[in-house]
């Protein structure tokens, strides 16, 4: 009897393992895979309490399996994490998913899943995805990385059929500035209490994406 139970557990686990990746996520991946490359214009608004920067514009170039490239005639600061709205980073290494049920966000019922990479080479530790299963796309994500902390992505789409977002809001943690004293202007005030209390801050970058030129497979 114990032998049968053991056999059932082993076989059951293997069968379950074979279905570890969420079917809706696979549909979204399939849809994403159909995009071989795209270019777009981005309007960037950086929101970090200790950085004041005017609205910037840049051009983004994406090609499948390649790093996303940004170019601008202005000086632009782009977060190292949070710009991968093609979600290619998630699909780069093997992973399993855990269904977390449905959750209502901004009036939309979204499917929540956890993505857990099974390969040690992946930079990601745990990803929570909020999927619009009807429109077959990711609406929100919270990405925990092994080295670069956690970042969140919020994506909005102009129409039901759009595969790529028209607005992305990336939230990230950022270490506070350590400016050497001799770079400070004479009028600069140093509030040590405030400096100590603000070791790590959170920042946000808002990206409006226009003029998509998408090449499909």
């Amino acid at each position, binding site marked *: 009897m114990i032998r049968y139970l053991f056999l059932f557990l082993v076989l059951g686990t293997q069968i379950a393992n074979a279905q570890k990746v969420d079917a809706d996520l696979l549909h979204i991946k399939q849809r994403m895979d159909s995009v071989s490359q795209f270019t777009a214009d981005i309007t960037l608004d950086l929101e970090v309490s200790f950085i*004041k920067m005017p609205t910037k514009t840049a051009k983004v170039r994406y090609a499948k399996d390649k790093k996303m490239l940004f170019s601008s005639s202005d000086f*632009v*600061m*782009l977060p190292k994490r949070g710009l991968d709205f093609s979600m290619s980073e998630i699909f780069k290494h093997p992973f399993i998913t855990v269904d977390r049920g449905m959750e209502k966000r901004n009036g939309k019922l979204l499917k929540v899943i956890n993505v857990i990479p099974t390969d040690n080479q992946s930079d990601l530790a745990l990803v929570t995805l909020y999927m619009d299963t009807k429109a077959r796309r990711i609406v929100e994500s919270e990405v925990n990385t092994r080295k670069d902390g956690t970042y969140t992505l919020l994506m909005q789409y102009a129409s039901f059929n759009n595969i790529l977002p028209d607005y992305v809001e990336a939230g990230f943690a*950022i*270490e506070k500035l*350590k400016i050497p004293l001799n*770079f400070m*202007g004479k009028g*600069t005030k140093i509030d040590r209490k405030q400096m100590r209390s603000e070791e790590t801050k959170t920042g946000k970058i808002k990206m409006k994406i226009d003029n998509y030129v998408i090449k499909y497979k």
Partner: protein
Amino acid sequence: MRSLLFAELLKLGKQSKTYYALAAILVIEILILITAYYEGSAILDLLLNNLRQSFYFEGTLLNGNLIMYIILNSLWFNVPLILMIITSGLVTDEYKDGTVQTVMLQAVKKWKFMLSKYIIAALFTLLVIAFMMLTTFTLAYSIFGKGDLIVYINTLNFFKSADAIHRICWAFASGAVAMIFYSVVSITLAVIIKEAAKTWIAAALFLIITNLLLKVDFGMPAINAYFFPKLIDNWQQLFYYQIDWLKIGVNNAVLFLYIAGFAVAGTYIFHKQDIT
């Protein structure tokens, strides 16, 4: 009055010290440019080291606008010191050469004589700032080109190139008022002290104390806002992300009152002096 002004202008134009001052400004600019050329990137890397961990940077911040801002920072000490030495000479030289007696023997009113000194000192200051602005613009933009300006004043402020140029121009204009203040003070000091070397020491001391008092909290809002050491950094207001034009205007108006006050005091003291 016109002939007095013309005579003062002629004296200023003929003395070699004037050209030494302009040369000194140029040397300061060139030294800043050389330092920026060889070490600018390393300094910026150090400044932005923390941000590099979280961000990719696209574009360069080592550009003509940053150089202009660094050169503007010589308005704290280097430029006012040079100006105070040169402008105080307008009076101390008269005492040293004994020409003040000669002038006073003519039908020249003492207040007019002093007023012409103050006016010429102010004009010379404007000339120096204009020279500084023109040479810096030419050198900085031709070597480093244009680009976004980064300034740290409580927050890390980024300005687009066109906005940065606009702010730098206004900062030179606002800085010129502070420089006129120093020049006028140096003339007043020269009237009191009369000797050149002693006046230079007093002027340098005045400059150092003013810079030190800028940081002191006097505990009273009115003094903290309108005591003259608190007004000499008015040009820095142009590099806050949101420009408070009203504050800049009021501060400069108050600084003009101080300028007038020091000029009146100098004229009064000169009027009371016996010219022997």
